[in-house]
């Protein structure tokens, strides 16, 4: 039977390994997402504390189970008969009192966090009404008159816009079944219950652009098209040929090794008719290119007019050029310029604070995804709302 004992032993070992991996390798994305709210810290603390308590108990009971069922059993039943027991009063008292005590501690320890999250919200008007529906979020802003349920309400599907660093309140509703309003980065999760209108408070301590700026580095997946083909080849060739100010700037900043690899790639490219049959980018060149591009994005300033010459900048890049984030050097802005320089070859950055449904509400549940957009100022948010309102009032 010992074979099976090892099999079941694997469960606690695997669980511990997965947890360890999620802590050791954050890039796997198995752990908690970055926290961008004020209450998040206490929630995370509780989360880890409870995980530690239950984790220790889980691993302990699993080990005990294996030992009792499989290893110990082999010893006890040598004479071919089972051993009977009528329980142990003292053991029962211990395993009742200890968990009750631990639960009591958790119950008291969580109260401040719960109070902060659920009750200590400012008594302000809701910034938006969030209506869940299979399978989308319908978000309603009160519009210029500040009143809900009037014809100038602003309707936005799947996008919740809030200002940064302010505790806002939303009104949560559902039009059909139970849904669960979940902002993982803000550690907010609340059920939307049919027939109820639930107040939910939260604040975001980081704007969407700040968040994107910190996560703007390029990865392999940014160069993959929908059909799975790679888009890096054309960029490599353009940089090697260095026909524009930007590409020659990039080429100058590459290491000699990478430039040598680029040159040999160009030979393959020309040999295989170039654009028609894009030859695969060798993995060495691929990782060197992505690594060096990321280095340039993080340290150089591509927004220099001399470099952007000849590039068709999109409207959003131009507006970001006008109000750069944290001075002129911004990874995000650099990335946007690079995207405009190679239109269609680099995927646009889609890192956002998620808005998800945490209730398995039907077959299309996983499609019930939206995003939270955190604006830098109230004015920026108002401008966005005004724009949306104008769009919605279009009479031509």
């Amino acid at each position: 039977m010992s074979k099976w004992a090892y099999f079941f032993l694997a469960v606690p070992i695997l669980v511990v390994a997965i947890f360890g991996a999620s802590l050791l390798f954050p890039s796997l994305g198995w752990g908690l997402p970055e926290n961008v709210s004020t209450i998040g810290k206490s929630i995370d603390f509780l989360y880890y504390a409870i995980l530690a308590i239950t984790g220790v108990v889980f691993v302990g009971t699993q080990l005990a189970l294996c030992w009792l069922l499989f290893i110990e059993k082999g010893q006890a039943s040598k004479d071919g008969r089972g051993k009977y027991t009528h329980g142990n009063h003292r053991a029962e008292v211990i395993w009742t009192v200890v968990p009750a005590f631990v639960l009591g501690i958790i119950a008291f320890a969580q109260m401040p966090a719960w109070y902060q999250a659920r009750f200590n919200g400012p008594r302000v008007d809701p910034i938006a009404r969030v209506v869940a529906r299979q399978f989308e979020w319908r978000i309603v802003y009160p519009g210029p008159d500040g009143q809900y349920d009037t014809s100038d309400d602003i309707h936005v599907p799947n996008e919740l816009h809030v200002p940064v660093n302010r505790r806002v309140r939303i009104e949560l509703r559902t039009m059909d079944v139970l849904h669960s309003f979940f902002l993982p980065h803000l550690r907010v999760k609340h059920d939307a219950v049919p027939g109820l209108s639930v107040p939910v408070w939260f604040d975001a301590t980081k704007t969407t652009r700040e968040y994107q700026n910190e996560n703007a580095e390029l990865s392999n997946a940014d160069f993959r098209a929908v059909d799975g083909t790679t888009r890096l080849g054309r960029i490599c060739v353009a940089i090697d040929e260095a026909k524009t100010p930007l590409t020659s700037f990039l080429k100058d900043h590459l290491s000699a090794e990478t430039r040598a690899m680029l040159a040999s790639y160009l030979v393959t490219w020309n040999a295989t008719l170039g654009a028609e049959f894009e030859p695969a980018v060798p993995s060495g060149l691929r990782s060197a290119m992505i690594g060096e591009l990321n280095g340039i994005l993080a340290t150089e300033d591509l927004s220099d007019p001399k470099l952007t010459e000849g590039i068709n900048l999109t409207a959003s890049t131009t507006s970001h050029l006008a109000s750069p984030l944290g001075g002129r050097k911004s990874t995000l802005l650099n990335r946007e310029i690079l995207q405009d320089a190679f239109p269609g070859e680099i995927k646009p950055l889609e890192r956002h604070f998620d808005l998800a449904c945490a209730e398995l509400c039907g077959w299309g549940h996983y499609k019930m995804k939206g995003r939270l957009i955190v604006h830098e100022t109230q004015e920026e948010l108002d401008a966005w709302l005004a724009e949306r309102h104008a769009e919605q009032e279009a009479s031509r």
Partner: protein
Amino acid sequence: MSRRLTWLTGLSVLLLGGCGINLPGQYPLASYTRAELIGEKSDERVDLPPAIREELGNLLVDYFGTPKQPGLLSISDEQWQNLIHGQALYQKHCIHCHGLNGGGNGPTAPFLFPRPRDYRRGVFKWKSTTRTAKPTREDLLLILKEGAIGTSMPPFRLMPEKQLNELVDYVIFLSMRGEFERKLLQYYATEGPNVRQMYAEGVSGAEVQQSVAQFNKELAEMAPEVLAEVQESWRQAGDDIIEPNETMPSYNVESEEYEASLQRGKELYLGDKAACYKCHNRDGRANVADMDPSMREKNVDDWGQPNYPRNLLLGMYRGGRRPVDLFRRIHQGIAGAQMPAGGSNLKPREIWDIVNFVRALPYRPSLLPQEKPKSAGHGHGHGAEESHAAEDDAKAEDH
């Protein structure tokens, strides 16, 4: 024990492997009844003799390719790339409702009300163009971005613009393919040789074969013209946009002019010129439950699906809530549905009055005589909120 383990492994492979849709080698050939195809009162399916079926299948592959390799002969490399990308996206996000060839008959479709759009007729409801025209690309993009509220069509607001455009390309492609196929099938249903009948009448085998070969030749000859016609209708869409030639009067909602506009709208609604009340009821709550059963049967759209007048107190407009959307809806009616076009006998100004009135109605139901007091129980709030509750009763799309 080991057998149970195999069983468990098998089950988890099934669960993890998921239910991906495998692309067949070809788009399936559409199957219509005579009623669906040429409006005859007959539920008989239009069956093609194998030889004609094969010819039609070949023509469709020649002109439109296969699900894995969609394409049109006349398009550039870049457009072709877009189609390939569009197909991949369509397969991921749309196919389960709208079906492999855009027939609105994907595996989820039977559970939805209203049914997903069948593109193959080339008829689209929510557009800025005239009733008989095709929608513009912008119309399709808007529906993709905003979804169609009150239906199961979700908004794809989070999808990058480029991908949305690729999806629009593919949807237009599927619609062209469907309409092309439908027109050739219509030609068969009206002009094609009825092989079964010919044999029954004692026509010799050689003659039957000859007439089939002759018909196949005709099909192949007319195909380019049919395709050109369908493509042209899509190309023209941009020329048929309905622009209100009188701009919407802008009223302050607290002004008397606004109230006067609402009153004029109300009179038109209840009067015989616009006659909105005939379908939407005097109280605006065109309610399926209140409807005369004979009316219910008559309310069928071009696709043969139940199609009821909208309860105007819900404030939910499937084709968009902008004033200009409502203007176009009243001006042109709704293609494929019962909503008639009002543009010919209503002046633009009158249409704007109705638009104002309809937009105010969900928040002020008392603008219309509300005969039945709303049943108690919907505790808090009024207006739109109450209407959401009312909508729940009428809605049958939960799944």
